[in-house]
């Protein structure tokens, strides 16, 4: 059919502009609601999204440390680079594995939950009910959730980094007999504040991405119960894709400045 590809491209461009504009609106309204943000909801959301996920991310971090040591073991065997194991594990965890894996897991846990809860409130009329009694849903619900999920994901990323490094030290001793003292010396000597800053910047960016995408997905949900499931899936898929692309972009940018 003539014009088919152009029509598809045009529709996709309009859809993309719609999503970008929608995200911009969520950001603008969240920023505007910050002075009236409900502190109780902020604390409740930090606990809901962050504190409750600590056991999950600790388990994740333990295995990240173990997997890194298993991979490093190949090079240690081949090149005898035992003294670099602390640096290699720390660099990979702080700059890449910690932030990205935490974000991908939190996309499923925090992003899907946030999108589904907001969608359910939206479809059930609770958000409109708040407006109807003179309460701004952004001040009461949306802004606290955006801030809380960003804080929670960034904080959980720190927990993952810390536990994964100790886990790598433990498995290093267990699998390739690297002395923990030597492990941490190599880590301390070869890693600096730039590496910690790079990881932290990624975690904040990832947290903000997950919270904004899931919030937008929840707020535009229309329909019934199926729509709730659909927006949760959309939030996870869109966030995961964007996180991976964002990770590449931030890594390239940070290599130049840090």
């Amino acid at each position, binding site marked *: 059919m003539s014009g088919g590809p152009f029509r598809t491209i045009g529709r996709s461009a309009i859809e993309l502009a719609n999503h970008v504009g929608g995200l911009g609106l969520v950001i603008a309204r969240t920023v505007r609601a910050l002075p009236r943000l*409900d502190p109780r909801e902020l604390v409740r959301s930090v606990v809901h999204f962050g504190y409750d996920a600590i056991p999950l991310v600790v388990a994740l971090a333990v295995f990240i440390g173990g997997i890194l040591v298993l991979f490093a073991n190949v090079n240690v065997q081949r090149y005898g680079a035992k003294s670099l194991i602390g640096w290699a594990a720390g660099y990979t965890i702080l700059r890449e594995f910690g932030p990205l894996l935490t974000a991908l897991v939190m996309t499923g846990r925090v992003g899907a939950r946030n999108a589904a809860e907001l969608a359910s409130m939206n479809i*059930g009329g*609770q958000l409109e009910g708040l407006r109807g*009694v003179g*309460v701004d849903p952004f001040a009461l619900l949306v802004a606290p959730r955006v801030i809380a999920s960003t804080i929670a994901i960034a904080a959980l990323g720190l927990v993952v980094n810390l536990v994964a490094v100790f886990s790598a030290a433990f498995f290093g001793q267990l699998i390739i007999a690297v002395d923990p003292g030597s492990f941490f010396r190599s880590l301390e000597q070869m890693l600096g504040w730039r590496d910690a800053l790079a990881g932290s910047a990624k975690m904040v960016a990832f947290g903000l991405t997950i919270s904004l995408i899931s919030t937008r997905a929840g707020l535009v949900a229309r329909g019934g119960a199926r729509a709730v499931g659909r927006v949760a899936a959309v939030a996870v898929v869109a966030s995961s894709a964007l996180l991976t692309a964002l990770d590449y972009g931030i890594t390239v940018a940070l290599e130049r400045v840090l």
Partner: protein
Amino acid sequence: MIELRELTVHYGSEPALGPVSGGVGGPTLAVAGPARAGKTTLLKALCGLVRPASGGVLVDGDDLVAAGSRLRGEIRSRFGMVFQNDALFDSLDALGNVALPLLRRGLARPEALLKAREALALVGLDGQEHALPERLSGGMRKRLGLARAIVARPRYLLADDPLAGLDPGTSARVLDLLFDLWKGRGGLVIAAAQPGPLLERCEELLVLDAGRPLARGAPAEVLARPAVRAVLEGVES
């Protein structure tokens, strides 16, 4: 007094209401019509929950559509609304739901809770302060929605099909409560698919069909028109 001036509302490109003009100043107005007649949209437009495509809404002389965010918020605080689907906040108990509008308007917590308890007592829900909405029956949820709508003592009360889904006995009790509470307070606008139970109590009846006003006036006069009867009999059947 609320005055509508050639008000139209669109959802996307689809017209949902209007043009509607006239005053809503009488103590009680019933709005009736079949599904998708524009009843809910009219109520939402009156209190600024939907933005009109054209025309205006004057509330006590203040233009709701043209108002800046501060004045708009103040105008909206003159309204209380009972939603068709209750629109209660699931994670808050009955007391929290009713106190919420007061707390967000800056009232001190003890005072807000005291007023919320009074409102709950008015609708017969004293003793249910700490019950979550999901634990309440349909009639109790309606009464809770009513308590939340009136707790801030609004000048106008809008009730969107407050009897939907209730059995006749509970409907009669909710309706008695609504009119008793609102006697002499200000404007009361009630939308209902079937206006039957409202006709004896409302001074005026507005019938909408496909978003447009079909008739308006004293209920007996409006119901005498064949076109109105045909539309409302369609709803009954």
